[in-house]
């Protein structure tokens, strides 16, 4: 039985690490492309959000390549993610595709993941697998994910000031491959150290003026480069340093009840920071996004790009509250709505204007206060 999973950022690293230890056959999803989106759009309901359409397309592609067991992330709560599985199963059934289906509940990783693994291996598919192997696979996957994300953060700091375009990305890809090839936590740590050292040796133009822009919003749109039109690279081309605040490890840690160990205090810190503007966490990333804007201002960032899929219920709320945050804290925020008919140029033009505005603000502040704003990494 060959399993597959929705292609969400580097989530594949976690799944593949688990599969290495559980000796499963995995059909890795292809990176999202126009063909994925077109396939998803053809089979999805019209009103579905962009992540649903991309996930549907990705799963249909994988099933076409021989997968017959789907592992899908789900969650309890008012976000549509909780009903993706139902919608996708209906959709695949109507497309004439049948196969196994396992849901991994993201709300509670301990119950949602481990119980499902047990169900999957011991009950459904009659596999004999030790808890030790499974646990080891999960920990190794989590570490691999964390190390690759650490390297990704290093890459983002350097994208805007590299002397020769492409150097940093190449170095990141090589480093990530070495981390993926490592089989023990120590060798992973060693590979990360090597990759960091290689990245530090890349010539940088440290005198080039840059602004630091936080990227937040709906998690799939933030993480998937196809969904957001390679936003990080685009910002870097415009001279802005992209700073991501949503990481997949944070979500896993939050699900395990260890949210505080995440980047910058994780989701709990962000939700706490949002309280003056949004007293209740309505689910999804709404409150966390508002909190990230408040924290970004405190950390001396220059602006924030908020990404939301068209008709996303949570992000509508955060978009409206972010306007108030922007007004009160004098913090520029750009909300971009992403849909299946995204024009790359539309995003580029709006980003260009936004980054230009940030540079002008910095220049006027510098002339007034002699302060350039945020610190260089």
């Amino acid at each position, binding site marked *: 039985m060959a399993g597959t999973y929705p292609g969400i950022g580097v989530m594949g690293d976690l799944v593949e690490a688990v599969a290495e230890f559980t000796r499963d056959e995995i059909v890795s999803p292809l990176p999202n492309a126009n063909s994925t989106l077109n396939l998803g759009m053809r089979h999805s*309901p*019209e*009103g*579905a*959000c962009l992540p649903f359409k991309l996930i549907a397309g990705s799963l249909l592609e994988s099933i076409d390549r021989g997968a017959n067991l789907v592992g899908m992330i789900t969650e*309890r*709560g*008012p*976000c*549509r993610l*909780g*009903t993706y*599985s*139902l*919608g996708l*199963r*209906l*959709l695949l059934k*109507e497309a004439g595709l049948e196969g196994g289906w396992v849901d991994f509940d993201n709300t509670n990783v301990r119950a949602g993941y481990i119980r499902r693994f047990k169900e999957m291996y011991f009950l459904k598919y009659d596999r004999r697998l030790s808890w030790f192997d499974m646990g080891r696979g999960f920990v190794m996957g989590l570490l691999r994910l964390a190390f690759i994300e650490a390297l990704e953060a290093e890459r983002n700091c350097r994208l805007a000031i590299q002397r020769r375009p492409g150097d940093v990305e190449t170095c990141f890809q090589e480093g990530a491959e070495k981390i993926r090839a490592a089989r023990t936590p120590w060798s992973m740590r060693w590979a990360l150290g090597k990759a960091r050292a290689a990245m530090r040796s890349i010539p940088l133009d440290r005198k080039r003026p840059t602004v630091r822009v936080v990227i937040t919003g709906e998690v799939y749109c933030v993480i998937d480069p196809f969904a957001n039109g390679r936003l990080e690279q685009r910002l870097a081309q415009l001279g802005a340093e992209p700073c991501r605040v949503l990481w997949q490890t944070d979500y896993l840690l939050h699900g395990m009840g260890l949210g505080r160990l995440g980047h910058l205090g994780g989701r709990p810190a962000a939700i706490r920071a949002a309280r003056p*503007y*949004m*007293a*209740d966490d*309505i*689910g*999804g990333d*709404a409150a966390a996004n508002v909190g990230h804007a408040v924290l970004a201002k405190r950390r001396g960032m220059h602006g924030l790009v908020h990404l*939301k899929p*068209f*008709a*996303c*219920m*949570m*992000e*509508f*709320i955060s*978009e*409206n*509250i972010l*306007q*108030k945050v922007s007004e009160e804290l004098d913090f520029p925020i750009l*909300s971009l*709505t992403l849909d299946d008919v995204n024009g790359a140029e539309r995003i580029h033009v709006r980003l260009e204007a936004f980054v230009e505005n940030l540079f002008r603000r910095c220049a006027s502040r510098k002339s007034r206060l002699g302060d350039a704003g945020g610190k260089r990494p």
Partner: protein
Amino acid sequence: MKVGLLNCLLYYPLGPYWETFFRELKFDVVVSPALSRDEFDRRRTRFAGDICLPVESVAGHLDWMKGRVDFAFIPKLLDRRGDLYICPVCAGLPSVIRHVFADGPEVRSFPLTPFSEPGREARRALLPLGRSPGDIRRAHVVARDRYAALEAEWRADLPGRSPGPAGVPPRTILVLGMPYVLGDPLTNGNLPDLLRQRGCEVAMPLNLVPRSMIRRVHVAGYPIYWSFAGMSLHSLEVALKERRPDGVIYLSSFACGVDSVVVPIVQAVCRRCEDLPCLTVTVDEHASAAHVEVRVEAFLDCVDAGIRKRALA
């Protein structure tokens, strides 16, 4: 002291309860009038981003209330373990209104439903206004009992109890959707009246299964978290089991995230039933009465053809 209730969104299933509750607490209750299309067009676009028609209409109601009430009550129905679990836009609306309508009437927001006792938040909001916990409890009991009587009336209002107009075959149409889309004349495009004028008997989720708004519905083993979505799906199930409708219409508002999940399920269920036509009507700011009328007429022709086919068989 005057309390304002917005005649939109959750007012449709729960408004009668709130009215009785506040009247019992000796407040003057002011309910904003239903918005006409012109008023809506004049007063919308206060929100940023794309949003459904019922939420956009909140702007008009709040504008009308300015200077007319001491505070506007916006329900906060967010408790994940509670009885009602509404769409996140309605759940986050009190926070948004405070920021977007800072110049509007004062907004007080706390959980208030007939299905559970008013809690700490309700007491915190009402005690400073001179109402004691005993008053709040008594008001809740009176309002809850009246709401239960109203539910019984809705249930008694089921189709099939009265003969239709002469010469027209009796047709029962199940109209599904969020209760606030079905109830608000601004958003429903007069669809229920249109159907009744054409000799149809109209069944809606509030007639069929009023209590299912507090019941967690499962579809193919998956829980449907949103209460009103579950209510639509449950009423479809009950309608198919108890009395088969001649057709199903789903009235959806454009950009509604919940409907984007529910509509495909309803369509899939209807496809599985032989000869059960299903129509989805999507309404937005540009929807006109003519567009709804034309589609309903075509749909009824289809329903009639099905009835004739069944009669011949």
